């Protein structure tokens, strides 16, 4: 059942408790909380190593009120599929009776870089897991180093002069594996995101969600702006919200009039060094324009 109102989402039980050590205004916490709300009680969460993992499971405490497993950095997809396959076997052999949803919450490093091989294996095997990548576009847990998901121009501690290559196309990679369902998400469009999570889990096959996650510390902005920046990512066309199902790609949030990318970039300290470089801004604008052409977004409003 799609979430028709914010109330219907709010009334779902929470399975993510406060007291965790994530930064004030952390986008990953918002995502973890919404995902567990939607996925519900009969869910097992797996995370690779990362901010979300270390800050929510400081032994002997835990923020997770659903079963939770962390193994290592590069194997969350293999770990989740192992649990799923075990549940399938145990149910078939009548050793247990009740199934569980398997949801991975992995950062961009654990997904696009070190975890890509294990993700590829899990998607290719067709196992019934939902892999959600919370993408904050760098290795935040170790102190903001560039990842394969760092966008062009962004400062990180290992790309001090700005990232020179483009972000890895994770959605393209997931779709190329023939997943049942893939979608992009942003917390600023929380009902759209929640509906996608619900759909992804119900697909009966591997599904993938690529969720942009502004990071107050790594992106260098005032913590109160997390939702605003998530919205601007969509409004500029840099993060089009769409879903892929059975060969069809469909835009889920229309952007009739786009905002220039500079509106998004200027709020973030990681792009400060290019704000007075029109040729760099033009380059990033051209990436947004390309997305707009591909997904049918409107023109940039002057």
């Amino acid at each position, binding site marked *: 059942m799609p979430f028709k109102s914010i109330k219907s989402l709010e009334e779902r039980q929470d399975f993510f408790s406060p007291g965790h050590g994530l930064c004030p205004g952390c986008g990953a916490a918002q995502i973890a909380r919404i995902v567990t709300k939607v996925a519900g*009680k*009969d*869910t*097992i969460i*797996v995370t690779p190593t990362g901010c979300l*993992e*270390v800050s929510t*499971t*400081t*032994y*002997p405490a*835990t923020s*997770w*009120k*659903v*079963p*939770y*497993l*962390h*193994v*290592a950095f*590069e*194997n969350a997809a*293999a*770990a*989740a*599929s*192992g*649990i799923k*396959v*075990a*549940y*399938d*076997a*145990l149910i*078939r*052999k009548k*050793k*247990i009776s*009740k199934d*569980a949803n398997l949801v991975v919450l992995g950062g961009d490093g654990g997904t696009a870089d070190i975890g890509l*091989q*294990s993700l*590829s*294996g899990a998607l*290719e*095997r067709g196992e019934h897991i939902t892999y959600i990548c919370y993408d904050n576009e760098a290795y935040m847990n170790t102190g903001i180093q560039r990842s394969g998901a760092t966008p062009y121009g962004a400062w990180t501690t290992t790309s001090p002069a700005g990232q020179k290559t483009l972000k890895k196309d994770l959605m393209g990679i997931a779709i190329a594996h023939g997943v049942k369902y893939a979608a992009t998400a942003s917390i600023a469009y929380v009902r759209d995101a929640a509906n996608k999570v619900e759909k992804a889990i119900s697909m009966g096959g591997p599904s993938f969600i690529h969720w942009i996650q502004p990071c107050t510390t790594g992106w260098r902005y005032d913590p109160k702006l997390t939702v605003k920046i998530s919205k601007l990512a969509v409004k500029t066309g840099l993060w089009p919200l769409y879903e892929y199902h059975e060969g069809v790609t469909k835009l889920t949030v229309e952007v009739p009039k786009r905002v220039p990318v500079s509106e998004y970039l200027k709020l973030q300290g990681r792009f400060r060094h290019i704000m007075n470089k029109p040729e760099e801004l033009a380059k990033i604008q051209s990436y947004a324009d390309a997305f707009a052409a591909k997904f049918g977004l409107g023109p940039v409003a002057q």
Partner: protein
Amino acid sequence: MKTVEPILLSGNLAAAYAIKQLDVDVVAAYPITPQTTIIEKISEYVADGELDANFMLVESEHSAISSCLSAASAGARVFTSTSSQGLLLMHEILFITSALRLPVVMAVANRSVSAPINIWCDHGDIMPQRDVGWIQLFAESAQEAYDKLIQAYRISEDPRVRLPVMVNADGIILSHTYEPVFPLEDSEVASFAPWKLYPLRLDPENPLTMGAFGYPEYYFETRYQSAKALEDSIGIISEVDEKFGEISGRKYGAVSPFRCEDADVILISMGSISETIRATVRKLREKGEKVGMMSLKLFRPFPFKEMMGLVKDAKAVGVVDRALSPGAIVGPVFNDITSALYLSKMSVPCVNFFTGLGGRDVRMADVRDMFEKLKEVAKTGVAKEHRFYVGLRG
């Protein structure tokens, strides 16, 4: 005890046969020589409906062990197997499996490590896994590989243990050599190692967090807890071996001595070399030479107490290492044994023999040479050199 007909099986096929009888739920594995025929055979058992398990054909050994770990965390009985580079790729996750106290069972067809690439037997792959916190059993024959796998599940799932177990069998030499194997009846296996839902499991009805972050106030205690469990498992391992002996007539012990009682010199070894050494001892004893040998069947936890009584009257002890430990002053097995001797205040002279690397044959003549060296040491009471590279050119 019933008399059963033997089946002609290689070490690998004997391992697969055991898994078929053990009600395993999930197998996750990746091909690597010389382990591959285990998983090929298991695939056949699954395809033919002889084993009701889900076989995950994963994309690497790293995912194989990760999936086994997590399937065990869901309560399933799991199995994987590997060799050499595959075991090295699993290395990171092996520590995590033991710290999380998950009963993963793995067969290892021991093989050399690269470079150069070489697919034959030595213990170069297993020695880097000494400190991963797993129980490590060694087999000398296909029969023993079969028996030890059945024992492994009972040990691993025992609430007093709850640790992963590796069953090591020498690659090619054991993995690919056919010999008559006496299997147990399916029902005997089922009652010896009955399936139980693993209680420390991820279950939405009783949520728990597994794999948490450990601050300095907790890390030491968590690591010690699994290390202590490994140390304490030695009694349960021997208890399981005893019980297995009762139903099969075969029991192995943590160390298996041969003619040690009045031996002047004793050679200690692990894996298939032990068979050659035992045969050599038999020959030399026929000539009246007071030689003995001891096969180490359990490498972790290290059975030093069981061993010390056996060497107390020897005049010289030799230890065979089938792997190098570059930069160390001695080989890994030698290291453990001499530490145990030292702590037991025994000052018997010891010699370390490195041999059989990368599948190089170790013949009875080589073993006779080792005994000659030991006899010289016994005569003088001093080992002038403590390392010999048997069969090395130059």
